[in-house]
């Protein structure tokens, strides 16, 4: 039975030879990928070749940009050329060039007789939203640079609206507040928004064109009987979000990037994998809601969002906490919590999702914890504990019980739910069942500060909710941006109640296009947005501004609010809304005033 060395040698000789050859090949011609590190994306942005050196699909863009920009003006030509060289260093030169050429280049062709008929007296473009950008004279024709980036030519700017696959259970919960749109409603709305931005924004001789997804992603037809009358093109995602399916999301992102080749992707709701993949492939993508600042910075200048990034949300919250709450006794909780323990000071519990260890939300939460345990609060720091949960609708209820039990046992007096907007439905009901009514310090994240969503939460618990809110005092829905854009497109009636989210993304994309000037590319978009003045800062209009070097998300300021179950909402007149302190005055970072919160005046609503 024993095998001789000779026999062994004969048996395995071919394998050994093969292995030896492979080792030799590895030594002589190694198979290594090109290094891509943080910052490479931004550095290579103008030409994009720095970004896509590992992936390839848009390497030709570098050349395109270089050529056309050269025609538009000297400085930008330098940018294109540098981008064309493909390296990270070259990209750095590109950034400088793009700054000079962006908006000026756009204004040049029409310098003689400017048509400013679309300019309002305040210098903004006239249009259906308060957030119209600084006015540009109507494009008088001429060379707009043609194909200045992927998805752009002389007459069109191609974009993709990515509609994530819904989840029946989640939609059912949202439907109770009329917050679940049908495919038909959604389609009609985005068709209107598309029409509205093309009508009102300066696109320098181009038109924003929505692309249909291929095959089963073909939004215009795939929803069949659910969408009988609207054939507007969009990308219907087929990937499960609950539970997430990253390979599928990345595959769809690749399809968008390499097959559809749009200039922009609007994806209000999707898994982080989608944004990551698109950003890495050099596509400008807008969406995500309160993702960490680092995610945007890592993929700069490709990944943008309307809403505040997670770090800024937590910065506001930390400042609010450190200036108004730290070191003080619990005031706004139920009697059951005010009586807990002997320590008079607050003890904060931060709840956040961490599905299978996904670090997305933890990054922002860690920042907050660092701030209120020494950083911003200094020596007055209160105790703080964090509680993660799995974002899984199937196990949500049991997890809620477990979490509430831990909160109670840890004698948490003040809960910060940096959660998805559905989690508090389970958490607050369980809290009430367990006779646990802590202070609910709102962060203004994930739309939990939207009146209609907050009505889903247990009123006995949510009546102790107060804190910063990123959203503004709501306007009646028929005066909202969604309704105005809807009417602007020639429709009657109103769109469905969820559309203020989608219209915000349309408006941001259109502003990016207008601010970038005719030479539209990621770098000019970046420069245009960073150079643009902030708009808003009024009670009904949050301040939206993007700033160098790493602010790629919109809303900057907060207002101070508290929940009032009896107060009618401005949105629909029904009871249950967030009341504002100081008439909804907006507060930017560093401007929160020290002193007690001015919530629940004279014990109202609590």
């Amino acid at each position, binding site marked *: 039975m024993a095998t001789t060395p000779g026999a062994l040698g004969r048996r395995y000789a071919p394998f050994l030879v093969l292995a030896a050859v492979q080792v030799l*090949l*590895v030594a002589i*011609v190694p*198979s290594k*990928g090109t*290094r891509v*590190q*943080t*910052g*490479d*994306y931004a550095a290579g942005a103008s030409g994009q070749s720095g970004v896509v050196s*590992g992936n*390839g699909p848009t390497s030709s863009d570098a050349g395109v940009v270089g050529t056309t920009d050269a025609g538009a003006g000297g400085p930008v030509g330098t940018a294109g050329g540098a981008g064309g060289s493909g390296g990270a260093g070259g990209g750095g030169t590109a950034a400088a060039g793009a700054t000079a050429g962006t908006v000026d280049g756009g204004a040049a062709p029409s310098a003689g007789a400017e048509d400013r008929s679309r300019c309002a007296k305040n210098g903004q473009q006239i249009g259906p939203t308060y957030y119209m950008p600084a006015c540009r004279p109507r494009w008088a024709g001429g060379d707009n640079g043609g194909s200045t980036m992927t998805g752009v030519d002389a007459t069109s700017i191609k974009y993709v609206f990515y509609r994530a696959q819904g989840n*029946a*259970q989640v939609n*059912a*919960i949202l439907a*109770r507040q009329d917050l679940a749109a049908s495919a038909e409603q959604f389609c009609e709305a985005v068709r209107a928004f598309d029409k509205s931005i093309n009508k009102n924004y300066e696109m320098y001789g181009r038109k924003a064109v929505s692309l249909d997804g*291929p095959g089963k992603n073909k939004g215009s037809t*795939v929803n069949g009987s659910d969408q009988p009358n609207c054939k507007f093109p969009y990308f219907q995602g*087929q990937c499960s979000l609950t*539970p*997430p399916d*990253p*390979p599928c999301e*990345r*595959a769809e992102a*690749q*399809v968008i990037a390499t097959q559809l080749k749009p200039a922009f992707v609007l994806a209000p709701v999707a898994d*982080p*994998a989608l944004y*990551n993949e698109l950003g*890495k492939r050099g596509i400008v993508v807008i969406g995500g809601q309160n993702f960490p600042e680092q*995610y945007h910075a*890592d993929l700069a200048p490709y990944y943008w969002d309307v809403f505040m990034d997670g770090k800024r949300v937590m910065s506001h919250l930390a400042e609010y906490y450190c200036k108004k709450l730290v070191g003080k006794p619990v005031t706004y909780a139920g009697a059951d919590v005010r009586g807990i323990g002997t320590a008079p000071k607050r003890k904060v519990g931060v709840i956040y999702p961490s599905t*299978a*260890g*996904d*670090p997305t939300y*933890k990054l922002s939460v860690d920042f907050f914890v660092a701030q209120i345990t020494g950083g911003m609060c200094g020596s007055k720091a209160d105790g703080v*504990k964090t509680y*993660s*949960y799995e974002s*899984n*609708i*199937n*196990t*949500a*209820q049991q997890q809620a019980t*477990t979490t509430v*039990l*831990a909160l*109670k*046992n840890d004698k948490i007096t003040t809960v910060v739910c940096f959660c998805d907007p559905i989690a508090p439905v*389970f958490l607050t*009901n369980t809290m009430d*069942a*367990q*006779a646990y009514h802590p202070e609910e310090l709102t962060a203004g994240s994930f739309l939990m500060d939207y009146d209609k969503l907050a009505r889903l939460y*247990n009123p006995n618990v949510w009546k102790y909710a107060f804190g910063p809110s990123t959203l503004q005092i709501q306007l009646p829905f028929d005066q909202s941006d969604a309704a105005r854009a809807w009417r602007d497109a020639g429709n009657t009636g109103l769109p469905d109640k969820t559309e203020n989210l989608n219209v915000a993304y349309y408006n941001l994309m259109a502003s990016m296009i207008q601010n970038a000037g005719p030479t539209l590319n990621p770098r000019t978009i970046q420069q245009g947005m960073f150079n643009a003045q902030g708009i808003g800062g009024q009670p009904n209009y949050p301040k939206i501004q993007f700033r160098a070097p790493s602010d790629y998300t919109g809303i900057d300021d907060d207002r101070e609010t508290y929940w009032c179950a009896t107060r009618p909402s401005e949105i629909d007149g029904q009871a249950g809304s967030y009341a504002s302190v100081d008439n909804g005055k907006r507060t930017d970072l560093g401007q929160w005033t020290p002193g007690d919160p001015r919530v629940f005046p004279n014990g109202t609503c609590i």
Partner: protein
Amino acid sequence: MRRVWTAPRTGPPVQAVTAAVVLYVALHVLMRHHQPTGGVYAFGALVGVLYGFVALGLILVYRANRIINFAQAEMGAVAGVLGALLIKLHHVPYPVAFVVAIAVAVVIGAVVEVVVVRRFYRAPRLILSVATIGLALGLGAIQFYLPKWVGGDYSVIDPTPPRTWFNRFEFVFSGFHFNGNHIVIVVAGAFVVVALFAFFRYTDVGIAARASAENADRAALLGIPVKRVSTVVWIVAAVLSALGIFLRIPVIGLPAGADIGLTVLLYPLAAAVIARMESFAVAMGAGIAIGVLEQTLYFFSRDPLVPFAVMLPILLGAMLAQRGKLSRGQDSGLSTWSLAREFRPIPPELRDVDVVQWARFLAGLAVLAAAIFLPFAMDLKQQILASVIVLYGIVGVSLVILTGWAGQISLGQWGFAGVGAVVTGGLAAHLHVDFFVTLVVAGVAGALAAVVIGLPALRIQGLYLAVTTLAFAVTVQVYVVNARYFPSLMPNSAQNVVRPTLYGRISIDDPRSYYWLCLLFLALALASARALRNSRTGRALVASRDNERGAQGYGVSVSRARLTAFAISGFWAALAGALFAYHQQTVESLSFDPQISLLILTMVVIGGVTSLPGAMLGTVWLGFLKYGPLEGSPTGQLLASGFGVTILLLALPGGLAQVFYGARDSLLRTVADRRGIHVPSLVADSREERIEVAAAADTDVLTTAAASVEESDTLVPAPAGTATR
């Protein structure tokens, strides 16, 4: 003292009390600076009772059929949710809804047993276990539609636990608000344990069930209506599950999802394993202990992932502690768990016939061409995802080696892929190591991990190992593929696991090239597996699987053979994970869902677990189902993968390979007839088929037994529990 500890009557309660005290002291010491209150322990115990209900059902079914019933929770969920919906939608009184739920559970249990389980009476236990995965998914889909059928929609699923008559009895214990519903769970738990004990101890049906569990054929020969007893057991299991679900609704709320989920099943499975799939009292006690552990560990860590991660060492410890305590009957049960139909190679008489050689060559060429040119018939997204399916295929090959040939059931094979991906992510994104080096290192890491997991398998196998591998897969997802614990290994959001240009010349950047690269590695995996099967090691593996003691008698080192299987299997699974990391160009925990492991196991069983071509057919089936016409329709996928799997296995217990090899053998028979070649193995088949038909047609006990005896002469796989005959 030793006598008290080991005596059949006094041993279990003494051991249980000791375990509880040890657990309490351990938790007390561990959390001495942050003591959980009594409320945490009490709620944990309560949740544990609910785990216990599922564990009891698992044990019942295991004792009757020697399988893991993956549909245990779902069988009751349909009935329990129906009862709750009746209360919510139609305001049916609680007791009436309870009776309706139990009645529906009885029907579901009976239907499942008669329509599905009975049809798998003679099938390998692994096949039936996988069929229950299909059942679980199918019942999950029914649960999804239930609200509509009952007259509402999902909006009726209010997350607030409904109020019942028992809510009026409220009290506070150590800060936790309890009510009568909590007490009902505790009382029901105790009652069920006592009732089950009495049922199996004192009733005729219970005693018959125990006899059937010990040795079904011997019981049948003694006149016990084995199949009818099995029906009773499945009914009781379904009722237990419904009871658990129905009782949890007023406390924890209505399950909002369509399926209970694999990770939730891990705890009851662990409880059942700790109870050696035998003792109801121990299972309930273990369930309670696990519930307490889960709650206190969450309390301690405030991270729901930690209790999952802790399950692996607990299960490994439980496994190592149990060898030697298993009865002979159980041991035989374990050995028959993995028996699966073997497919013969082409008979030697026909192997050199020119037509056969040409047919083999052309068929191989056609398959190869189809695989190579497949991307040209696909859209871009399918091309991208086709690579993922091919990688699942490589993991499938690793499962054929481990489960099909070595007989070691793995429910967590995708976990090894996770290990490979993490290693690759670290080497490629941080250290920029050569592509091929990363693959080899990842493979070796996977092999090492598999050997560590496999070491306890030298002492104990079958179901126990299966549960451990499941715990391993969960641990990998929540702990290993997690930047929180391994920040230096995991690439961050800005880092790519960049696909290299091979040898500085060959780009693998576009989906098609990468698909072909994956295909090449699949071919290598298949070639390596085939070489292994034809080697002495391969024969030793199969011999050890079929007859461990016999193999040892022939001087085969079973330990070495099994560890080799684990190592090779782990190597290929991890290598697939490494290629997956390059495919995704990142490593993220969400991609390593343990559910994928079950999916791959289902895929391999559907194909034919002992056959490499079968595994490939299963891979094709999985690709079609996951990214084919049903993509984007979760309920459609749930139904197709659920009832679809069950129906397919009912029709083809040997999997798709059965069709493949059946067609091949018919062609071979034709060739043999035309050439006048006498091929005994092909002729023997017709006799075997006649016997199978006769056995299926006869319900008479004696006829069945006689057929069983005849079958043993024709080397048809033995039914459950017959290996000690």
